[in-house]
């Protein structure tokens, strides 16, 4: 009991000096300006995609003169809950959330609802529930499916049968699973043409991805069709292909049909150089703009759809020119 007592005492003591200054700060949106504050809580910054997205938010909010608070949960669902609660504590005017996963965010949304703060789930949909939120999402499953479908069509043109390899992401990550399922769906339709001979779990880790691909190529030197659940793994995959001497441009003999997801700078480069056949691009700028708009609308009391779909798009040699400007990877490059 003593220990709890001490703890509570500590809290009590702390309150006195603590509150005053924090008040001051919370009147932070000064009386003069209508400047709003939006809290942006990301689950991770481990890949360029998220970095780009965060940057996009900075620009978007900056242009609209909205103050931005950021918090990165570093992959910890419970820490994320804490962080968003912090936002709420600081009376932000809107919350953008990249949840650790689709369901863990429910209590967060409820908390936001309770505090009557509009909350947008960025890029990852919440589970259906009575919690009110706006989700801006690119559908991993269908976009991957589209992308792979394009790769399959490319494979058809070669006229030969293909042995396929998929690099799977972290088995604990819903996106990875969504993309894996999208891939499976697409290749099953082409069962006659594509045989999946290797599934490499990368745990979103370059080293494992690289080793895995090398080993897979070792086991099946005739692999001619490769899809990675995220473009950020390309560097290691490319080096693996190089070691096996199978890194060839499209159309060259021995070319391995390459596909990815995200549309990052590496992928853009590879497209330009003609090594990459296609990648599924999430339209970050669309998603960001939509998110911010959704928050403003909600504050203005306008009706907002509970799900805003980012159609995304498959970018490939064919449509590179016209799509490049909407490919975030291409923008980052510049």
């Amino acid at each position, binding site marked *: 009991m003593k220990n709890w007592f001490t703890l509570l005492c500590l809290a009590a003591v702390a309150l006195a000096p603590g509150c005053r200054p924090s008040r001051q700060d919370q009147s932070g949106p000064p009386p003069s300006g209508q400047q709003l504050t939006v809290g942006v809580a990301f689950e991770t*910054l*481990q*890949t*360029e995609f998220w*970095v780009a997205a965060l940057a996009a938010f900075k620009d978007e909010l900056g242009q609209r003169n909205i103050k931005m608070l950021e918090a990165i949960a570093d992959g910890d669902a419970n820490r994320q809950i804490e962080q968003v609660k912090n936002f709420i504590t600081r009376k932000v005017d809107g919350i953008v959330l990249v949840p650790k996963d689709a369901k863990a965010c429910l209590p967060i949304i409820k908390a936001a609802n309770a505090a009557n703060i509009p909350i947008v789930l960025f890029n990852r949909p919440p589970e259906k529930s009575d919690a009110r939120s706006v989700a801006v999402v690119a559908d991993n499953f269908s976009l991957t499916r589209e992308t792979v479908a394009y790769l399959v069509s490319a494979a058809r043109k070669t006229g030969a049968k293909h042995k396929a390899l998929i690099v*799977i992401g972290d*088995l604990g990550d819903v996106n990875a699973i969504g993309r894996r399922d999208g891939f499976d769906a697409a290749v099953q339709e082409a069962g006659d043409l594509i045989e999946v*001979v*290797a*599934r*490499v*779990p990368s745990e*979103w*880790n*370059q*080293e*494992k991805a*690289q*080793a*895995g691909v*090398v*080993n*897979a190529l*070792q*086991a*099946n030197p005739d692999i001619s069709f490769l899809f990675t659940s995220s473009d*950020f793994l390309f*560097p*290691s995959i*490319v*080096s693996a292909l*190089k*070691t096996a001497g199978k890194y060839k441009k499209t159309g060259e003999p021995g070319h391995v049909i390459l596909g990815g997801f995200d549309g990052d700078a*590496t992928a853009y480069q590879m497209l330009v150089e003609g090594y990459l056949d296609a990648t599924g691009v999430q339209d970050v700028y669309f998603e960001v703009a939509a998110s911010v708009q959704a928050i403003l609308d909600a504050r203005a009391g306008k009706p907002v759809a509970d799900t805003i779909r980012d159609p995304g798009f498959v970018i490939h040699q064919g449509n590179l020119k016209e799509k490049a400007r909407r490919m975030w990877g291409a923008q980052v490059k510049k």
Partner: protein
Amino acid sequence: MKGHWPNALLPALNHASLMLFVSVLLGFGLLSPRFLTPDNLLNILIQASSTAIVAIGMTFVLLTAGVDLSVGAIMFVSAAAAGKMTLAGVALPWALVVMMLIGLGCGAVNALLITRLGVMAFIATLGTLYLGRGLGLFITETRAMNLPEAFLWIGVARVPILPLRALAGGSTGWLEVPLPVLILAAVALLAHVILTRTPFGRQIYAVGNDLEVARKAGINPRRILASVYFISGACAALGGILSLAQLGAVSPTFGNQREFAAIAAAVLGGTSLFGGRGQVWPGTVLGAILIQSVENGLVIVNADPYLYPLVTSAIIFLAVLIDSLRSGLLERLRRRKIRVEENGSPA
């Protein structure tokens, strides 16, 4: 300790670790004809080289009854710095030199904390683990960096070492060995010689066995302890170089959790976590290779991705189990032997 079965069992157990190793190789070999091909075995070596070198450094630390949790972070920091430099146009050799220096620097920090400021190794290196990761993230701006071709060259380069007649593989009529494997071999050899043939090496064992006695005997424990953390830091950096050479990119997860892989490899090789017992060759090196073989084999036989952690952990557990049984048995036998000359001091 009933009857005589221990005496019968001991020889078996003595080579059990090796037998396990062989049986893993054979097992995968049976499952897939491609596993035991020279190319694939070479592959395993290349892929194991990085972890093996880090684990060698770790062995030095473990021998002194310490631990270095910061190796993964060290890999990350040094790699990140090197990446930035090469992207900024610095020549590869210089980048590599800087990596090694950073490795030594981190080792120095650990050494300082542990030997001068008297912080427990576990906590000290836990702290530097966080510091290192944070610093790395800062340098990389938490995004992946793609490195110039030059790095990959280290990974793929093959060095002809001896002319060969009938041996397979060498197209040029020379037996060629991939550079990473060569580096691993060199490091392993060097470490082995240091540990077994130099006063410094033997004093490491002495300190690990009993620090107080070592001090009384006139050894300077601080010097020994400090130097093992330097070594570990340098090995981490070198391991970082080899991973980089295979990846050609630095991602924010680079080197993550490598400390566990390294410790596991060392312990698989029979290194005790309580100091004073263990060796780099064959111990640690084989340990690292064993782990890598399993990972490799699982891919080769296209196993269900979900099985990976299960199989890997099971095999590590098995290896350590065997080792413990063996040492337990040795103890019993030794106790009986002693009794005759001396008061049966408790085993």
